[in-house]
């Protein structure tokens, strides 16, 4: 095969590195882009560069934001006494969609996992303690909302232990049964956990 355009080849190679894109789709996208107006392609390229350049981590909560502090941390209407601890910024997005939680967040950026060489110092636990101990916020409750797997649990235990030294109330989201699911389709483990953490009616 003789290549007539190095530029096209390079674009295909780069596109093929994206998740869910094989060489064939990369080729289709590149050829599609080639047929578009200059303006559209420049817009796309600009949006991508802008994404990388302007998106940063909020220096308070650690979520992704265009301006530091993020819109949640700088929103005076939000309750700054309650902080919800999550693993990643996607979790903020998911909880925000519920419109239920009016406090602020703390994104750990990962969970403790020795197998992946992630220790307590590699996630933003120190920053959480600084927020609780600091004068700027008056945090009274920490809600742990990490995934209920072994690593999430270990991280929750670890944080809870550290927080015993602080005057702050630590809670965790409940283990429960998904809405709209019938009991017979729930696995036994989830069901027995839901029983153990039942609430009064």
């Amino acid at each position: 095969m003789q290549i007539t355009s190095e530029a096209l080849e390079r674009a295909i190679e780069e596109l093929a590195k994206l998740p869910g894109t094989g060489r064939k789709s990369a080729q289709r996208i590149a050829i599609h882009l080639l047929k578009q107006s200059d303006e559209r392609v420049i817009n796309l390229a600009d949006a991508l560069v802008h994404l990388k350049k302007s998106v940063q981590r909020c220096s308070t909560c650690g979520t992704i934001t265009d301006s530091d502090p993020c819109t949640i941390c700088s929103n005076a209407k939000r309750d700054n006494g309650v902080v919800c601890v999550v693993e990643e910024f996607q979790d903020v997005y998911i909880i925000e969609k519920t419109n239920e939680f009016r406090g602020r967040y703390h994104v750990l950026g990962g969970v403790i996992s020795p197998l992946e060489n992630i220790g307590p110092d590699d996630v933003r636990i120190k920053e959480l303690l600084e927020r609780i101990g600091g004068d700027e916020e008056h945090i009274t409750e920490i809600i742990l909302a990490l995934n209920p797997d072994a690593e999430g649990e270990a991280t929750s235990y670890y944080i809870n232990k550290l927080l015993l030294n602080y005057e702050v109330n630590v809670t965790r989201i409940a283990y429960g049964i998904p809405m709209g699911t019938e009991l017979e389709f729930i696995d036994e483990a989830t069901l027995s956990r839901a029983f153990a953490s039942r609430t009064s009616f």
Partner: protein
Amino acid sequence: MRINRLKLTNFRNHKETEVHFAPHLNLITGANGSGKTNLIDAIHYLCMSRSFVATSDRYVANHDEKYFMVDGDFTGEIRSSFKVSCSYSRGEGKKIFVNDSPLERLSDLIGMVPIVVLSPEDLALTSEGPSERRSFLDSMISQISPKYLRDLIDYRRIRKQRNKLLQEFRGPLQTLRSYLEPWDLQLVETGARLIHKRAEVLERFKTYLALQYRTISGLDLKPSLVYQTITDATDSIDKISERYNEELDKNFEKEVDREQTIIGPHRDEVVFYLGDMELRNYGSQGQHRLFSMALKMAQLFYYSDELDDLPIMLLDDVFGNLDQQKTDIITETLTKHTGQTFITSASERPFTISQFDGNSSNSWFDVHNGTVTNKY
């Protein structure tokens, strides 16, 4: 529970095989290496998501192929018909579908179709190391308790995390302790549940074992078992957790030294006795064979009391060593307590055509070079 249809593609020496089974007894005969064990191994695959013969999925694919597929139609007493399919390829690994929708976790398959296998390899259960007995116990309980299986998977993960810390942590021991603590809490929580469940199941299982050994041996030697774990196995969960914590505490330095978790159900042992003779070290070849067989028979009878759907039973080449009388006793008792039975045999000797010919509940298949023909 029973399987009505089985289809194999590139499964070991079966290029393309489709078989319709009889609802009751299925006899599969053929020379050694013809592919009869592979046929029932495929059934095992659909029930347990793994082979009972090969150690790795890679070796299951027909030797010059990179993928294999198995699918089967099942019917149960409680559950109406459903289809299980399993595909494996070198690149994508293993995928399991139930009624064409993918299972999120392979472990969700376990217990859907209860299955008991009797094979010559069972001899290892009584004659080899403790891990053989632990995996027998784990597999037996996992099929009747999804919660146990989940705990088992969690426990393994927690132990791995903990071992990694013990291996790689450099720094003051005090810091290591505080890093271990969140894992210890979970290790004890899941580990204590595993021990409690093992003790509970073994206590009931004992009776089944004694009965089965007597039935197949015809002897009065009383078989028994002792479950050895970190504590007295009859303790409550709270008591087990308490002892577990004490042991972890006491062995902290030893664990640091050996760089691994040395306390927990992953070190449990089940010791078998015949009368007051310890079987593993003092039993004869014949006693081992009968005892390991009795274990599997006991598993079957335990399941048939415990479960609404009777299990599928696979008997792989186990009649070669038995006389006519024992063969008859076993086939007779088995077929009453299984949903469906599969027997592979290199020789046709202990079986009579009249059991199969003109009997729609039984079928006799002959396998030759990966090709299956329905004889009767």
